[in-house]
Protein backbone atom coordinates (compact mmCIF):
# COMPACT_ATOMS: atom_id res chain seq x y z
CA UNK A 1 0.00 0.00 0.00
CA UNK A 2 1.47 3.32 -1.05
CA UNK A 3 -0.90 5.27 1.16
CA UNK A 4 1.15 5.19 4.37
CA UNK A 5 4.29 7.16 3.46
CA UNK A 6 2.40 9.70 1.38
CA UNK A 7 0.25 10.44 4.37
CA UNK A 8 3.12 10.73 6.81
CA UNK A 9 5.03 13.29 4.77
CA UNK A 10 2.12 15.16 3.28
CA UNK A 11 1.39 18.78 4.00
CA UNK A 12 2.66 21.05 6.74
CA UNK A 13 2.24 19.89 10.32
CA UNK A 14 -0.31 22.12 11.98
CA UNK A 15 1.40 24.94 13.74
CA UNK A 16 -0.30 26.23 16.91
CA UNK A 17 -1.23 29.52 15.24
CA UNK A 18 -3.11 28.18 12.22
CA UNK A 19 -4.27 24.67 12.97
CA UNK A 20 -7.78 24.82 11.56
CA UNK A 21 -6.78 25.72 8.02
CA UNK A 22 -4.13 23.04 7.92
CA UNK A 23 -6.61 20.40 9.00
CA UNK A 24 -9.47 21.25 6.69
CA UNK A 25 -7.51 19.60 3.89
CA UNK A 26 -6.11 17.06 6.29
CA UNK A 27 -4.79 14.52 3.81
CA UNK A 28 -2.90 14.67 0.60
CA UNK A 29 -5.05 14.64 -2.52
CA UNK A 30 -2.60 12.08 -3.92
CA UNK A 31 -4.25 9.45 -1.72
CA UNK A 32 -7.06 9.52 -4.28
CA UNK A 33 -4.63 8.51 -7.03
CA UNK A 34 -5.01 4.71 -6.75
CA UNK A 35 -8.80 4.85 -6.99
CA UNK A 36 -8.55 7.61 -9.59
CA UNK A 37 -6.32 5.44 -11.77
CA UNK A 38 -8.58 2.44 -11.20
CA UNK A 39 -11.61 4.46 -12.30
CA UNK A 40 -9.76 5.84 -15.31
CA UNK A 41 -8.98 2.34 -16.59
CA UNK A 42 -12.03 0.37 -15.50
CA UNK A 43 -14.80 2.98 -15.47
CA UNK A 44 -14.07 5.99 -17.67
CA UNK A 45 -12.28 4.06 -20.43
CA UNK A 46 -15.13 1.54 -20.80
CA UNK A 47 -17.70 4.35 -20.94
CA UNK A 48 -15.63 6.17 -23.58
CA UNK A 49 -15.41 2.95 -25.55
CA UNK A 50 -19.16 2.48 -25.22
CA UNK A 51 -19.67 5.94 -26.69
CA UNK A 52 -17.25 5.15 -29.52
CA UNK A 53 -18.91 1.83 -30.37
CA UNK A 54 -22.32 3.52 -30.47
CA UNK A 55 -21.09 5.58 -33.43
CA UNK A 56 -20.45 2.55 -35.61
CA UNK A 57 -22.97 2.41 -38.43
CA UNK A 58 -23.20 -1.37 -38.79
CA UNK A 59 -23.15 -4.40 -36.44
CA UNK A 60 -19.89 -5.52 -38.08
CA UNK A 61 -18.28 -2.27 -36.87
CA UNK A 62 -16.62 -1.28 -40.13
CA UNK A 63 -17.66 2.35 -40.64
CA UNK A 64 -18.77 5.26 -38.49
CA UNK A 65 -22.11 7.00 -38.65
CA UNK A 66 -25.08 8.14 -36.60
CA UNK A 67 -27.19 5.25 -37.93
CA UNK A 68 -27.73 3.60 -34.52
CA UNK A 69 -29.05 6.79 -32.94
CA UNK A 70 -31.24 7.45 -35.97
CA UNK A 71 -32.51 3.90 -35.72
CA UNK A 72 -33.41 4.40 -32.05
CA UNK A 73 -34.81 7.91 -32.18
CA UNK A 74 -36.87 7.39 -35.34
CA UNK A 75 -38.25 4.03 -34.29
CA UNK A 76 -41.64 4.27 -32.51
CA UNK A 77 -41.01 0.90 -30.81
CA UNK A 78 -37.71 2.01 -29.24
CA UNK A 79 -39.17 5.33 -28.18
CA UNK A 80 -42.11 3.53 -26.59
CA UNK A 81 -39.68 1.36 -24.60
CA UNK A 82 -37.86 4.48 -23.38
CA UNK A 83 -41.14 6.20 -22.53
CA UNK A 84 -42.49 3.14 -20.72
CA UNK A 85 -39.28 2.87 -18.68
CA UNK A 86 -39.35 6.50 -17.56
CA UNK A 87 -43.08 6.32 -16.83
CA UNK A 88 -42.53 3.17 -14.76
CA UNK A 89 -39.98 5.14 -12.73
CA UNK A 90 -42.51 7.94 -12.16
CA UNK A 91 -45.23 5.51 -11.02
CA UNK A 92 -42.92 3.67 -8.62
CA UNK A 93 -41.54 6.94 -7.21
CA UNK A 94 -45.05 8.32 -6.65
CA UNK A 95 -46.18 5.16 -4.83
CA UNK A 96 -43.06 4.98 -2.63
CA UNK A 97 -43.48 8.65 -1.71
CA UNK A 98 -47.17 8.20 -0.87
CA UNK A 99 -46.46 5.25 1.45
CA UNK A 100 -42.92 6.15 2.51
CA UNK A 101 -43.59 9.63 3.85
CA UNK A 102 -46.17 8.45 6.43
CA UNK A 103 -43.80 5.68 7.50
CA UNK A 104 -40.95 8.18 7.86
CA UNK A 105 -43.22 10.37 9.99
CA UNK A 106 -44.14 7.39 12.14
CA UNK A 107 -40.45 6.55 12.53
CA UNK A 108 -39.66 10.04 13.84
CA UNK A 109 -42.56 9.84 16.33
CA UNK A 110 -41.75 6.34 17.58
CA UNK A 111 -39.92 5.87 20.89
CA UNK A 112 -36.44 4.27 20.93
CA UNK A 113 -37.22 0.54 20.99
CA UNK A 114 -40.03 0.60 18.46
CA UNK A 115 -37.97 2.87 16.26
CA UNK A 116 -35.16 0.31 16.13
CA UNK A 117 -37.59 -2.43 15.11
CA UNK A 118 -39.20 -0.24 12.44
CA UNK A 119 -35.78 0.73 11.11
CA UNK A 120 -34.88 -2.94 10.77
CA UNK A 121 -38.07 -3.59 8.79
CA UNK A 122 -37.21 -0.67 6.51
CA UNK A 123 -33.64 -1.87 6.04
CA UNK A 124 -34.56 -5.49 5.46
CA UNK A 125 -35.46 -5.19 1.75
CA UNK A 126 -32.33 -3.17 1.09
CA UNK A 127 -30.19 -5.96 2.49
CA UNK A 128 -32.11 -8.89 1.06
CA UNK A 129 -31.02 -10.11 -2.34
CA UNK A 130 -32.98 -8.54 -5.20
CA UNK A 131 -33.69 -11.99 -6.61
CA UNK A 132 -35.11 -13.09 -3.25
CA UNK A 133 -37.30 -10.02 -2.95
CA UNK A 134 -38.60 -10.44 -6.48
CA UNK A 135 -39.16 -14.13 -5.90
CA UNK A 136 -41.39 -13.28 -2.95
CA UNK A 137 -43.62 -11.25 -5.24
CA UNK A 138 -43.99 -14.19 -7.60
CA UNK A 139 -45.28 -16.19 -4.63
CA UNK A 140 -47.70 -13.40 -3.70
CA UNK A 141 -48.97 -12.43 -7.14
CA UNK A 142 -48.93 -15.83 -8.87
CA UNK A 143 -52.06 -17.78 -9.88
CA UNK A 144 -51.81 -19.84 -6.69
CA UNK A 145 -50.58 -16.84 -4.75
CA UNK A 146 -51.98 -15.25 -1.63
CA UNK A 147 -53.87 -12.46 -3.31
CA UNK A 148 -55.68 -14.85 -5.62
CA UNK A 149 -56.29 -17.34 -2.80
CA UNK A 150 -57.83 -14.58 -0.71
CA UNK A 151 -59.97 -13.26 -3.55
CA UNK A 152 -61.19 -16.77 -4.41
CA UNK A 153 -61.80 -17.57 -0.75
CA UNK A 154 -63.86 -14.42 -0.26
CA UNK A 155 -65.83 -15.20 -3.40
CA UNK A 156 -64.80 -11.92 -5.01
CA UNK A 157 -63.71 -13.70 -8.15
CA UNK A 158 -64.33 -17.10 -9.73
CA UNK A 159 -61.10 -17.46 -11.68
CA UNK A 160 -57.64 -16.50 -10.50
CA UNK A 161 -56.73 -13.00 -11.63
CA UNK A 162 -53.68 -12.34 -13.71
CA UNK A 163 -51.52 -10.21 -11.43
CA UNK A 164 -48.06 -11.38 -12.29
CA UNK A 165 -46.77 -10.00 -15.60
CA UNK A 166 -48.91 -6.86 -15.26
CA UNK A 167 -47.76 -3.29 -14.84
CA UNK A 168 -49.68 -2.87 -11.57
CA UNK A 169 -47.96 -5.91 -10.09
CA UNK A 170 -44.60 -4.65 -11.27
CA UNK A 171 -45.11 -1.17 -9.78
CA UNK A 172 -46.09 -2.72 -6.43
CA UNK A 173 -43.09 -5.07 -6.39
CA UNK A 174 -40.68 -2.30 -7.38
CA UNK A 175 -42.16 -0.02 -4.73
CA UNK A 176 -41.33 -2.61 -2.07
CA UNK A 177 -37.87 -3.26 -3.46
CA UNK A 178 -36.97 0.46 -3.59
CA UNK A 179 -38.91 1.71 -0.52
CA UNK A 180 -35.85 2.00 1.78
CA UNK A 181 -34.21 4.38 -0.69
CA UNK A 182 -37.16 6.72 -0.15
CA UNK A 183 -37.72 6.25 3.59
CA UNK A 184 -34.12 6.65 4.80
CA UNK A 185 -33.46 10.14 3.33
CA UNK A 186 -36.94 11.22 4.51
CA UNK A 187 -36.19 10.13 8.08
CA UNK A 188 -32.93 12.08 7.97
CA UNK A 189 -34.68 15.20 6.67
CA UNK A 190 -37.58 14.92 9.14
CA UNK A 191 -35.33 14.42 12.16
CA UNK A 192 -33.43 17.62 11.25
CA UNK A 193 -36.59 19.72 11.59
CA UNK A 194 -36.76 21.68 14.82
CA UNK A 195 -39.76 20.24 16.74
CA UNK A 196 -40.42 23.71 18.16
CA UNK A 197 -41.63 24.80 14.73
CA UNK A 198 -44.52 22.32 14.73
CA UNK A 199 -45.35 23.28 18.32
CA UNK A 200 -45.30 26.95 17.39
CA UNK A 201 -47.58 26.27 14.44
CA UNK A 202 -50.01 24.40 16.70
CA UNK A 203 -49.86 27.12 19.35
CA UNK A 204 -50.74 29.67 16.70
CA UNK A 205 -53.89 27.70 15.98
CA UNK A 206 -52.96 25.67 12.93
CA UNK A 207 -54.40 22.16 12.81
CA UNK A 208 -52.42 18.97 12.22
CA UNK A 209 -53.02 18.93 8.46
CA UNK A 210 -52.16 22.59 8.06
CA UNK A 211 -49.00 22.23 10.13
CA UNK A 212 -47.97 19.24 8.03
CA UNK A 213 -48.65 20.96 4.70
CA UNK A 214 -47.26 24.38 5.60
CA UNK A 215 -44.38 23.54 7.97
CA UNK A 216 -43.25 19.92 7.85
CA UNK A 217 -43.62 19.25 4.13
CA UNK A 218 -41.72 22.33 2.87
CA UNK A 219 -38.96 21.73 5.42
CA UNK A 220 -38.38 18.14 4.36
CA UNK A 221 -38.43 18.92 0.62
CA UNK A 222 -34.67 18.26 0.28
CA UNK A 223 -35.25 14.78 1.74
CA UNK A 224 -38.17 14.19 -0.60
CA UNK A 225 -36.07 15.16 -3.61
CA UNK A 226 -33.16 12.97 -2.48
CA UNK A 227 -35.52 10.03 -1.95
CA UNK A 228 -37.25 10.51 -5.30
CA UNK A 229 -33.90 10.69 -7.06
CA UNK A 230 -32.64 7.41 -5.59
CA UNK A 231 -35.95 5.60 -6.06
CA UNK A 232 -36.41 6.75 -9.63
CA UNK A 233 -32.88 5.82 -10.70
CA UNK A 234 -33.14 2.43 -9.00
CA UNK A 235 -36.61 1.62 -10.35
CA UNK A 236 -35.84 2.24 -14.02
CA UNK A 237 -32.63 0.21 -13.88
CA UNK A 238 -34.07 -2.69 -11.83
CA UNK A 239 -33.38 -5.30 -14.45
CA UNK A 240 -34.18 -8.44 -12.43
CA UNK A 241 -37.50 -7.29 -11.01
CA UNK A 242 -38.58 -5.86 -14.35
CA UNK A 243 -37.88 -9.10 -16.18
CA UNK A 244 -39.29 -11.51 -13.56
CA UNK A 245 -42.45 -9.63 -12.57
CA UNK A 246 -42.99 -7.81 -15.87
CA UNK A 247 -42.51 -10.98 -17.87
CA UNK A 248 -41.88 -11.18 -21.59
CA UNK A 249 -44.62 -8.85 -22.80
CA UNK A 250 -43.37 -5.72 -21.09
CA UNK A 251 -40.05 -4.52 -22.39
CA UNK A 252 -38.00 -1.88 -20.58
CA UNK A 253 -34.68 -0.29 -21.43
CA UNK A 254 -32.35 -2.58 -19.43
CA UNK A 255 -33.79 -5.76 -20.98
CA UNK A 256 -33.87 -4.13 -24.42
CA UNK A 257 -30.17 -3.35 -24.05
CA UNK A 258 -29.36 -6.85 -22.82
CA UNK A 259 -31.27 -8.54 -25.66
CA UNK A 260 -29.48 -6.49 -28.30
CA UNK A 261 -26.08 -7.11 -26.73
CA UNK A 262 -26.25 -10.77 -25.82
CA UNK A 263 -28.82 -12.62 -27.96
CA UNK A 264 -28.55 -10.49 -31.09
CA UNK A 265 -24.89 -9.56 -30.65
CA UNK A 266 -25.57 -6.12 -32.06
CA UNK A 267 -23.00 -4.17 -30.07
CA UNK A 268 -23.32 -0.78 -31.79
CA UNK A 269 -27.10 -0.69 -31.33
CA UNK A 270 -26.80 -1.97 -27.74
CA UNK A 271 -24.21 0.75 -27.09
CA UNK A 272 -26.52 3.39 -28.57
CA UNK A 273 -29.38 2.14 -26.35
CA UNK A 274 -27.03 2.32 -23.36
CA UNK A 275 -25.97 5.88 -24.22
CA UNK A 276 -29.56 7.05 -24.77
CA UNK A 277 -30.52 5.44 -21.46
CA UNK A 278 -27.53 6.98 -19.65
CA UNK A 279 -28.36 10.44 -21.02
CA UNK A 280 -32.03 10.03 -20.06
CA UNK A 281 -31.10 8.96 -16.50
CA UNK A 282 -28.55 11.75 -16.13
CA UNK A 283 -31.05 14.32 -17.43
CA UNK A 284 -33.66 13.20 -14.87
CA UNK A 285 -31.11 13.13 -12.06
CA UNK A 286 -29.78 16.59 -12.95
CA UNK A 287 -33.29 18.00 -13.13
CA UNK A 288 -34.20 16.55 -9.72
CA UNK A 289 -30.90 17.76 -8.27
CA UNK A 290 -31.71 21.26 -9.48
CA UNK A 291 -35.11 21.07 -7.81
CA UNK A 292 -33.34 19.79 -4.70
CA UNK A 293 -30.95 22.73 -4.64
CA UNK A 294 -33.82 25.18 -5.03
CA UNK A 295 -35.82 23.46 -2.29
CA UNK A 296 -32.83 23.46 0.05
CA UNK A 297 -32.62 27.22 -0.31
CA UNK A 298 -36.34 27.34 0.37
CA UNK A 299 -36.05 25.10 3.44
CA UNK A 300 -33.32 27.28 4.92
CA UNK A 301 -35.12 30.53 4.22
Amino acid at each position, binding site marked *: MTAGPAMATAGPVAAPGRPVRAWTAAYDIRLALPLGAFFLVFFLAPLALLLLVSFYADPGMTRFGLDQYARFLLDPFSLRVLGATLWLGVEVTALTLLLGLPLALLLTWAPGRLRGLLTLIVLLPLLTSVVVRTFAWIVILGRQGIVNAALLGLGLTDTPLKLLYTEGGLVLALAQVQMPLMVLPLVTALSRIDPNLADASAALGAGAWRTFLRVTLPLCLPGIVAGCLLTFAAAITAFITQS*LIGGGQMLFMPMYLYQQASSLNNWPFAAAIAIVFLVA*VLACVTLLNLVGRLSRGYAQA
Partner: protein
Amino acid sequence: MRTSLRRDFDWFSFHGTVLLLAGLCLVLLAAPTVIVVVVSFTNGFSLRFPPPGYSLRWYAALAEAEQLQAAAWNSLVVAGWATLLSVVLGTAAALAIARSRRLSARLLDSLFLSPLVLPALAFGLAALMLFSLAGIPVSPLTLILGHTVVCVPFVVRTTVAALSQMDPVLLESSTSLGASRLYTFRRVTLPLIRPGILAGGFIAFMASFDNVPVSLFLRDAATDMLPIRMWQDLEGRLDVTVAAASSLLILVTVVLAVVMERAAGLSRRMAG
Protein backbone atom coordinates in the same frame (compact mmCIF):
# COMPACT_ATOMS: atom_id res chain seq x y z
CA MET B 1 -67.06 23.67 21.59
CA ARG B 2 -67.43 23.41 17.86
CA THR B 3 -63.90 24.57 17.16
CA SER B 4 -62.52 22.05 19.62
CA LEU B 5 -64.49 19.30 17.91
CA ARG B 6 -63.09 20.38 14.59
CA ARG B 7 -59.58 20.37 16.01
CA ASP B 8 -60.08 16.86 17.34
CA PHE B 9 -61.34 15.69 13.97
CA ASP B 10 -58.41 17.39 12.30
CA TRP B 11 -55.93 15.73 14.69
CA PHE B 12 -57.47 12.28 14.41
CA SER B 13 -57.87 12.38 10.65
CA PHE B 14 -54.25 13.43 10.16
CA HIS B 15 -52.75 10.89 12.55
CA GLY B 16 -55.18 8.22 11.35
CA THR B 17 -54.16 8.74 7.74
CA VAL B 18 -50.48 8.65 8.61
CA LEU B 19 -50.91 5.49 10.69
CA LEU B 20 -52.97 3.78 7.99
CA LEU B 21 -50.53 4.52 5.17
CA ALA B 22 -47.48 3.75 7.35
CA GLY B 23 -49.12 0.46 8.36
CA LEU B 24 -49.76 -0.41 4.72
CA CYS B 25 -46.14 0.44 3.96
CA LEU B 26 -44.87 -1.80 6.77
CA VAL B 27 -46.98 -4.71 5.50
CA LEU B 28 -45.67 -4.10 1.99
CA LEU B 29 -42.10 -4.09 3.29
CA ALA B 30 -42.28 -7.10 5.57
CA ALA B 31 -44.83 -9.42 3.95
CA PRO B 32 -42.70 -10.71 1.06
CA THR B 33 -39.86 -11.69 3.36
CA VAL B 34 -42.16 -13.43 5.83
CA ILE B 35 -43.94 -15.28 3.04
CA VAL B 36 -40.74 -16.61 1.46
CA VAL B 37 -39.58 -17.94 4.81
CA VAL B 38 -42.92 -19.63 5.52
CA VAL B 39 -43.17 -21.17 2.04
CA SER B 40 -39.66 -22.59 2.29
CA PHE B 41 -40.90 -24.93 5.06
CA THR B 42 -43.62 -26.44 2.88
CA ASN B 43 -43.92 -30.20 2.47
CA GLY B 44 -45.46 -29.85 -0.97
CA PHE B 45 -43.95 -29.26 -4.37
CA SER B 46 -45.48 -25.86 -5.11
CA LEU B 47 -45.10 -22.36 -3.79
CA ARG B 48 -48.69 -22.34 -2.51
CA PHE B 49 -49.33 -20.07 0.47
CA PRO B 50 -50.21 -21.07 3.10
CA PRO B 51 -48.42 -24.39 2.59
CA PRO B 52 -50.44 -27.63 2.95
CA GLY B 53 -47.99 -28.84 5.63
CA TYR B 54 -44.56 -28.17 6.98
CA SER B 55 -41.24 -29.98 6.60
CA LEU B 56 -37.53 -29.41 6.20
CA ARG B 57 -37.34 -31.33 2.94
CA TRP B 58 -36.31 -28.32 0.81
CA TYR B 59 -33.47 -27.53 3.17
CA ALA B 60 -32.34 -31.12 2.82
CA ALA B 61 -32.60 -30.69 -0.96
CA LEU B 62 -30.43 -27.63 -0.63
CA ALA B 63 -27.62 -29.74 0.80
CA GLU B 64 -27.57 -31.68 -2.46
CA ALA B 65 -28.05 -28.73 -4.80
CA GLU B 66 -24.49 -28.66 -6.04
CA GLN B 67 -25.09 -26.02 -8.70
CA LEU B 68 -26.46 -23.59 -6.14
CA GLN B 69 -23.60 -24.33 -3.74
CA ALA B 70 -20.93 -23.79 -6.37
CA ALA B 71 -22.61 -20.56 -7.45
CA ALA B 72 -22.80 -19.38 -3.83
CA TRP B 73 -19.08 -20.09 -3.36
CA ASN B 74 -18.19 -18.12 -6.53
CA SER B 75 -20.30 -15.20 -5.36
CA LEU B 76 -18.64 -15.25 -1.93
CA VAL B 77 -15.13 -15.24 -3.40
CA VAL B 78 -15.85 -12.43 -5.86
CA ALA B 79 -17.66 -10.36 -3.20
CA GLY B 80 -14.78 -10.90 -0.75
CA TRP B 81 -12.12 -9.66 -3.17
CA ALA B 82 -14.29 -6.81 -4.49
CA THR B 83 -14.93 -5.67 -0.90
CA LEU B 84 -11.25 -5.82 0.00
CA LEU B 85 -10.30 -3.74 -3.05
CA SER B 86 -13.17 -1.33 -2.40
CA VAL B 87 -12.20 -0.78 1.23
CA VAL B 88 -8.50 -0.18 0.49
CA LEU B 89 -9.00 2.06 -2.55
CA GLY B 90 -12.14 3.73 -1.21
CA THR B 91 -10.78 4.61 2.23
CA ALA B 92 -7.59 6.14 0.79
CA ALA B 93 -9.65 8.17 -1.70
CA ALA B 94 -12.09 9.26 1.01
CA LEU B 95 -9.20 10.56 3.15
CA ALA B 96 -7.99 12.59 0.18
CA ILE B 97 -11.30 14.18 -0.77
CA ALA B 98 -13.18 14.56 2.52
CA ARG B 99 -13.03 17.98 4.19
CA SER B 100 -11.40 19.45 1.12
CA ARG B 101 -13.08 22.31 -0.71
CA ARG B 102 -10.73 22.09 -3.65
CA LEU B 103 -12.39 21.75 -7.04
CA SER B 104 -10.36 18.63 -7.82
CA ALA B 105 -11.64 16.97 -4.63
CA ARG B 106 -15.26 17.88 -5.43
CA LEU B 107 -14.90 16.51 -8.97
CA LEU B 108 -13.31 13.28 -7.75
CA ASP B 109 -16.10 12.92 -5.19
CA SER B 110 -18.72 13.12 -7.95
CA LEU B 111 -16.74 10.72 -10.13
CA PHE B 112 -16.33 8.11 -7.39
CA LEU B 113 -20.04 8.22 -6.53
CA SER B 114 -21.32 8.23 -10.11
CA PRO B 115 -21.58 4.42 -10.52
CA LEU B 116 -24.43 4.63 -7.98
CA VAL B 117 -26.75 6.43 -10.40
CA LEU B 118 -25.55 5.02 -13.72
CA PRO B 119 -27.38 1.93 -14.99
CA ALA B 120 -25.09 -0.96 -14.02
CA LEU B 121 -26.10 -2.90 -17.12
CA ALA B 122 -24.68 -0.16 -19.36
CA PHE B 123 -21.44 -0.25 -17.38
CA GLY B 124 -21.33 -4.07 -17.62
CA LEU B 125 -21.62 -3.91 -21.41
CA ALA B 126 -18.98 -1.16 -21.58
CA ALA B 127 -16.55 -3.13 -19.41
CA LEU B 128 -17.06 -6.23 -21.56
CA MET B 129 -16.21 -4.15 -24.64
CA LEU B 130 -13.02 -2.91 -22.98
CA PHE B 131 -11.86 -6.36 -21.92
CA SER B 132 -12.56 -7.88 -25.32
CA LEU B 133 -10.74 -4.99 -27.04
CA ALA B 134 -7.75 -5.52 -24.76
CA GLY B 135 -7.86 -9.25 -25.48
CA ILE B 136 -8.55 -10.16 -21.85
CA PRO B 137 -10.96 -13.10 -21.63
CA VAL B 138 -13.77 -12.81 -19.07
CA SER B 139 -12.88 -14.64 -15.85
CA PRO B 140 -13.35 -14.31 -12.09
CA LEU B 141 -10.73 -11.54 -12.29
CA THR B 142 -12.78 -9.39 -14.67
CA LEU B 143 -15.78 -10.01 -12.41
CA ILE B 144 -13.87 -8.74 -9.38
CA LEU B 145 -12.68 -5.62 -11.23
CA GLY B 146 -16.18 -4.84 -12.51
CA HIS B 147 -17.78 -5.43 -9.12
CA THR B 148 -15.22 -3.16 -7.45
CA VAL B 149 -16.27 -0.24 -9.68
CA VAL B 150 -19.92 -0.54 -8.64
CA CYS B 151 -19.15 -1.31 -4.95
CA VAL B 152 -16.47 1.27 -4.14
CA PRO B 153 -18.96 4.21 -4.02
CA PHE B 154 -20.55 2.75 -0.88
CA VAL B 155 -17.21 2.79 0.96
CA VAL B 156 -16.33 6.27 -0.31
CA ARG B 157 -19.73 7.65 0.74
CA THR B 158 -19.79 6.29 4.29
CA THR B 159 -16.11 7.05 4.93
CA VAL B 160 -16.35 10.63 3.62
CA ALA B 161 -19.43 11.11 5.84
CA ALA B 162 -17.57 9.75 8.88
CA LEU B 163 -14.57 11.98 8.17
CA SER B 164 -16.63 15.13 7.80
CA GLN B 165 -18.38 14.47 11.11
CA MET B 166 -15.03 14.21 12.88
CA ASP B 167 -14.15 17.09 15.19
CA PRO B 168 -10.95 18.74 13.90
CA VAL B 169 -10.14 19.78 17.48
CA LEU B 170 -9.25 16.14 18.20
CA LEU B 171 -6.63 16.13 15.46
CA GLU B 172 -5.28 19.49 16.59
CA SER B 173 -4.88 18.36 20.16
CA SER B 174 -3.19 15.14 19.09
CA THR B 175 -0.71 17.13 17.00
CA SER B 176 -0.13 19.78 19.62
CA LEU B 177 0.61 17.01 22.12
CA GLY B 178 3.44 15.97 19.83
CA ALA B 179 1.98 13.05 17.92
CA SER B 180 3.17 12.48 14.37
CA ARG B 181 0.66 12.51 11.53
CA LEU B 182 0.87 8.77 11.09
CA TYR B 183 0.40 8.21 14.82
CA THR B 184 -2.55 10.60 14.84
CA PHE B 185 -4.04 8.74 11.88
CA ARG B 186 -3.67 5.35 13.57
CA ARG B 187 -4.77 6.34 17.05
CA VAL B 188 -7.31 9.13 16.45
CA THR B 189 -8.63 9.24 12.89
CA LEU B 190 -8.88 5.54 12.17
CA PRO B 191 -10.81 4.58 15.33
CA LEU B 192 -13.20 7.45 14.69
CA ILE B 193 -13.95 6.54 11.08
CA ARG B 194 -13.81 2.77 11.55
CA PRO B 195 -17.63 2.42 11.86
CA GLY B 196 -18.00 4.33 8.59
CA ILE B 197 -15.51 2.08 6.79
CA LEU B 198 -17.12 -1.01 8.32
CA ALA B 199 -20.63 0.00 7.25
CA GLY B 200 -19.42 0.88 3.76
CA GLY B 201 -17.56 -2.40 3.42
CA PHE B 202 -20.64 -4.34 4.56
CA ILE B 203 -22.91 -2.59 2.04
CA ALA B 204 -20.27 -3.09 -0.67
CA PHE B 205 -20.11 -6.82 0.12
CA MET B 206 -23.88 -7.20 -0.04
CA ALA B 207 -24.04 -5.20 -3.29
CA SER B 208 -21.41 -7.40 -4.89
CA PHE B 209 -22.93 -10.64 -3.62
CA ASP B 210 -26.27 -9.55 -5.06
CA ASN B 211 -25.04 -8.07 -8.33
CA VAL B 212 -26.56 -9.38 -11.54
CA PRO B 213 -26.14 -6.70 -14.25
CA VAL B 214 -22.34 -6.53 -14.14
CA SER B 215 -21.93 -10.28 -13.64
CA LEU B 216 -24.12 -11.03 -16.66
CA PHE B 217 -21.53 -9.50 -18.97
CA LEU B 218 -18.25 -10.16 -17.16
CA ARG B 219 -18.49 -13.79 -16.08
CA ASP B 220 -17.25 -16.71 -18.15
CA ALA B 221 -19.43 -19.72 -18.85
CA ALA B 222 -17.72 -21.73 -16.12
CA THR B 223 -18.33 -19.17 -13.36
CA ASP B 224 -21.90 -19.43 -12.12
CA MET B 225 -22.98 -16.66 -9.75
CA LEU B 226 -25.65 -17.21 -7.09
CA PRO B 227 -28.13 -14.45 -8.00
CA ILE B 228 -27.92 -15.34 -11.69
CA ARG B 229 -28.36 -19.04 -10.94
CA MET B 230 -31.43 -18.27 -8.80
CA TRP B 231 -32.82 -15.87 -11.38
CA GLN B 232 -32.50 -18.46 -14.13
CA ASP B 233 -34.03 -21.14 -11.89
CA LEU B 234 -36.97 -18.80 -11.29
CA GLU B 235 -37.46 -18.03 -14.97
CA GLY B 236 -37.51 -21.71 -15.82
CA ARG B 237 -39.55 -23.43 -13.16
CA LEU B 238 -40.66 -22.22 -9.76
CA ASP B 239 -38.52 -24.44 -7.59
CA VAL B 240 -39.07 -24.54 -3.82
CA THR B 241 -35.31 -25.10 -3.35
CA VAL B 242 -34.90 -21.44 -4.31
CA ALA B 243 -37.23 -20.53 -1.43
CA ALA B 244 -35.03 -22.47 0.99
CA ALA B 245 -31.90 -20.81 -0.39
CA SER B 246 -33.61 -17.42 -0.14
CA SER B 247 -34.61 -18.02 3.49
CA LEU B 248 -31.05 -18.95 4.40
CA LEU B 249 -29.81 -15.76 2.74
CA ILE B 250 -32.44 -13.73 4.63
CA LEU B 251 -31.40 -15.29 7.94
CA VAL B 252 -27.70 -14.60 7.39
CA THR B 253 -28.45 -11.05 6.23
CA VAL B 254 -30.64 -10.21 9.21
CA VAL B 255 -28.05 -11.51 11.67
CA LEU B 256 -25.27 -9.57 9.93
CA ALA B 257 -27.43 -6.44 9.72
CA VAL B 258 -28.22 -6.52 13.43
CA VAL B 259 -24.52 -7.02 14.23
CA MET B 260 -23.56 -4.16 11.91
CA GLU B 261 -26.27 -1.91 13.36
CA ARG B 262 -24.76 -2.44 16.81
CA ALA B 263 -21.16 -2.11 15.64
CA ALA B 264 -21.43 0.67 13.09
CA GLY B 265 -24.89 2.28 13.26
CA LEU B 266 -25.66 0.90 9.82
CA SER B 267 -29.08 2.53 9.32
CA ARG B 268 -27.76 6.02 10.04
CA ARG B 269 -24.99 5.56 7.51
CA MET B 270 -27.18 4.09 4.81
CA ALA B 271 -29.39 7.16 4.88
CA GLY B 272 -26.42 9.04 3.40
